[in-house]
């Protein structure tokens, strides 16, 4: 039975109907006429890659953004939800990816926060709060110790507290944004039990994820999104991870890149058993090994948050290593500083342009000098050589078509695409032996994307070893010579772009090994 698209007279049986939702951000069309139909009492999964527009859609349902176009109907009634208060009033609750809890307060205090029971209309009534929270927790089978402090309990329990918070406020429709991203497999199992319990109690649950096995395990219906559009609506029983992967990553390769045949040269970068922790001190890269040769592009595919950014930062000396070695052009750079690494001619297009790759308050000229500002020809004897800085910047701005071509402009006044061109120009001008390129085209328009792709290929022609980290499978597939897939800090397998299908890649990104993915995709 295919997915049933309800008629208007059926809307009253649907907890949520979103019709023709359009949301335009300054440079991205985040939602492009999106329709979503969630039946009352079902668990509905929304899947898609990062940047597909899932969270944007849910944030509109929760009143964090207002839609530019489209309608939202709750239980058949057209409503305008302008802020989370409106959403809570009609029974919508949202559990965000990042928890909004107060560490030193107890579970009960956190749950009632913002809507506390009071004595004599002004004093907080802790006894009543504890009682109330206990009651809800027993009613829905969500076990928590109401007197524990948030900072002392596990992430899985904190999530439970977040869910209880929404229930305390009377939510009938629960939105969970990537709820399993922070959970261990066991905690994920427990969460699923909780979700099924809630469903049995008549709650409607919307569940955002990009992990396909979870969709299959827990949902009734699925809506698939890609690039701001809905690419599939299907009952879970009618589909397979393979089909979902197809809908999620899309079949057509949008961009054609002409890549000439080329034999890679000698080994330039060799990473062995690299271990890196994330900001919380938890292992993010768990013993990764690979090598890149001259004139070769190694692509790293994977869903965001699987250790790629930690790997990127570790390679450039921006993050401490917990184990393993990095050998670059005969030099051990495992514990080298960023300056030493750059001196050894490794350059870097950072995923987070605003955080790392530019000083937005500096002029374009000063940004072009970043990392080279202390040496010839940019400086001499400790003094900046403004004449050379300006001349070189002018040259680069022209060569890389940064617009407007005004080097005294502050970088924050450029558009995203031109900022990225500025960064690419500088890192290119390092004449690197190896370049770490991460998310080079995120948020850019087609023109800028093509320009950056052709620049990367030019580097390849010039025998530079390139590590390309990207969430865009199209980009990975069309540029890379070899691809490795990262999942939860480990390498799931290595493939050649012409010997792998999108669904196999999608499955590996969702945690299957190459062999599992092969057999599952060909069954």
């Amino acid at each position, binding site marked *: 039975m295919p997915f049933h698209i309800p008629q208007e007279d059926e809307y009253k049986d649907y907890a949520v109907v979103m019709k023709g939702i359009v949301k335009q951000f300054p440079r991205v069309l985040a939602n492009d006429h999106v329709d979503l139909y969630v039946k009352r009492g079902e668990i509905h999964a929304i899947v898609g890659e990062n940047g597909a527009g899932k969270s944007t859609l849910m944030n509109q349902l929760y009143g964090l953004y207002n839609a530019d176009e489209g309608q939202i109907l709750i239980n058949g009634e057209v409503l305008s939800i302008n802020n989370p208060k409106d959403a809570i009033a009609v029974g919508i609750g949202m559990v965000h990816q990042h928890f909004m809890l107060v560490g030193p307060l107890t579970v009960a205090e956190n749950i009632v926060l913002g809507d506390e029971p009071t004595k004599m209309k002004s004093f907080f009534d802790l006894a009543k709060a504890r009682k109330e929270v206990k009651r809800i927790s027993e009613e829905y089978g969500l076990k928590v110790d109401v007197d524990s402090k948030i900072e002392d309990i596990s992430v899985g329990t904190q999530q439970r507290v977040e869910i209880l918070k929404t229930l305390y406020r009377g939510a009938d429709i629960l939105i969970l944004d990537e709820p399993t991203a922070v959970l261990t497999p066991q905690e994920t199992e427990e969460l699923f039990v909780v979700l099924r319990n809630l469903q049995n109690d008549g709650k409607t649950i919307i569940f955002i994820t990009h992990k396909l096995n979870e969709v299959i395990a827990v949902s009734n219906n699925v809506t698939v999104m890609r690039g701001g559009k809905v690419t599939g609506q299907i009952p879970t029983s009618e589909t397979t991870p393979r089909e979902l992967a197809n809908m999620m990553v899309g079949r057509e390769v949008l961009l054609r890149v002409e890549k000439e045949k080329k034999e890679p040269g000698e080994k330039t970068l060799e990473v062995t058993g690299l271990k890196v922790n994330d900001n919380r001190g938890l292992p993010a890269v768990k013993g990764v090994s690979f090598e890149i040769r001259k004139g070769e592009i190694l692509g790293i595919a994977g869903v965001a948050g699987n250790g790629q950014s930690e790997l990127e930062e570790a390679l450039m000396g921006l993050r401490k290593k917990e184990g393993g070695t990095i050998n670059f052009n005969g030099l051990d750079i495992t514990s080298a500083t960023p300056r030493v690494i750059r001196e050894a001619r490794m350059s870097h297009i950072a995923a987070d342009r605003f955080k*790392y790759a530019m000083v937005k*308050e500096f002029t374009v000229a000063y940004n072009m000098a970043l990392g080279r500002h202390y040496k010839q020809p940019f400086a001499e004897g400790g*003094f900046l050589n403004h004449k050379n800085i300006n001349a070189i910047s002018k040259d680069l701005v022209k060569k890389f078509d940064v617009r407007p071509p005004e080097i005294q402009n502050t970088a924050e006044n450029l558009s995203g695409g031109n900022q990225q061109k500025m960064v690419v120009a500088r890192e290119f001008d390092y004449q690197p032996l190896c370049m770490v390129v991460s998310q080079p085209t995120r948020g850019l328009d087609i023109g800028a994307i093509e320009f950056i792709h052709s620049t990367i290929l030019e580097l390849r022609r010039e025998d530079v070893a390139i590590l390309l980290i990207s969430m865009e499978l199209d980009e990975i597939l069309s540029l890379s010579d070899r691809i490795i897939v990262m999942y939860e800090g480990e390498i799931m397998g290595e493939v050649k772009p012409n010997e792998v299908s999108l669904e196999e890649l999608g499955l590996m990104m969702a945690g299957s090994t190459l062999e599992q993915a092969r057999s599952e995709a060909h069954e």
Partner: protein
Amino acid sequence: MNKKKWMRVAIPIISILIALLIASIIIIWIGKGSFAERFDFLVKAYTEMVKGAFGNKTAIMNTIIKMTPLILTGLAVGFGFRAGVFNIGAEGQMAMGALTATIFAVNAASLPSFVAIPLTMIVGMLAGAVWAGIAGFLKAKTGAHEVITTIMLNWIAYNITNWAVTDPFNAGGGIPKSPEIASSAKLPNLLTSQASFMSFGILIAIAAAVVIYIILYKTSMGYEVKAVGFNPYAAEYGGINVSKNIILTMAISGALAGLAGTLESIGLYYRFYGTLSSGKGFDGISIALIGQNNPFGIIAASLLIGGLRTGSNQMQFVGVPKHIVMIIQSIIIFLVAAERMVMTIMGWNRKKGAK
């Protein structure tokens, strides 16, 4: 870009005008008689203030003496701001610089002036640099916030210096003060008028502003300091040692404050009284704000505040309380700090969203 530069100058000037306007209202309000009489009173008050600050040679000298330490503490705080550190401890660094420099200068009798004076200044700057460097080191290595550590160091400095001039380094006579410094270490005078004198400390302060300007705008070091201040992540990405720059910035900042204390000791009092600074270290914060952290802006701001304070004495003679000047100063700082407010008043607000 150009517009931004222009606004950096315009905002303090407009703030000053608004502050004067508000002060005028207060002065008219406290005046007596008809409106015309009150208006005369206002004109008289401002005339006296300007006379008091710049009306004769002695007045000008007093204004310059007041502005000299303000330039240096303003530079100290402003330079720190450029690297994203808030040195609230100029007060303590100034006191430590003055104490150490005075101890050296008291014992410098055997040295000729051209050695004793520069050496004394170096000693004072080093003491300030070390004192601030402690906070810089703690921030770089442990993440301890410099606002907290420099405040605490202020108290330590306050008590050390007070103890020093009352006990081991006391000149006798029951007053907490150090012995007089050797005459070879005294700064020569640039101007004298009747009984008052003015050392050439002002030239040293202006020279310091020029040096800081060159560091900030012409050197790789200034580039690094600003990069760390704007975006420490990008600085690190560009191979800049963020910890080193934070410590260095604090040390330079402290050296400037230490120099401020040293000049007070060797150019004005010829000894150290323990609590010499009377808030000049904290004034540095206001000066840096009004001067928009630009060395030349800081000189202008010091001239303004120095002039207002000197002029306020004269204004008192016609019956306007001295505190009016504090009110004017506070309103200026308030408006400069809340520059958005000035922009709103002037209708310069633009959409700031869309990022």
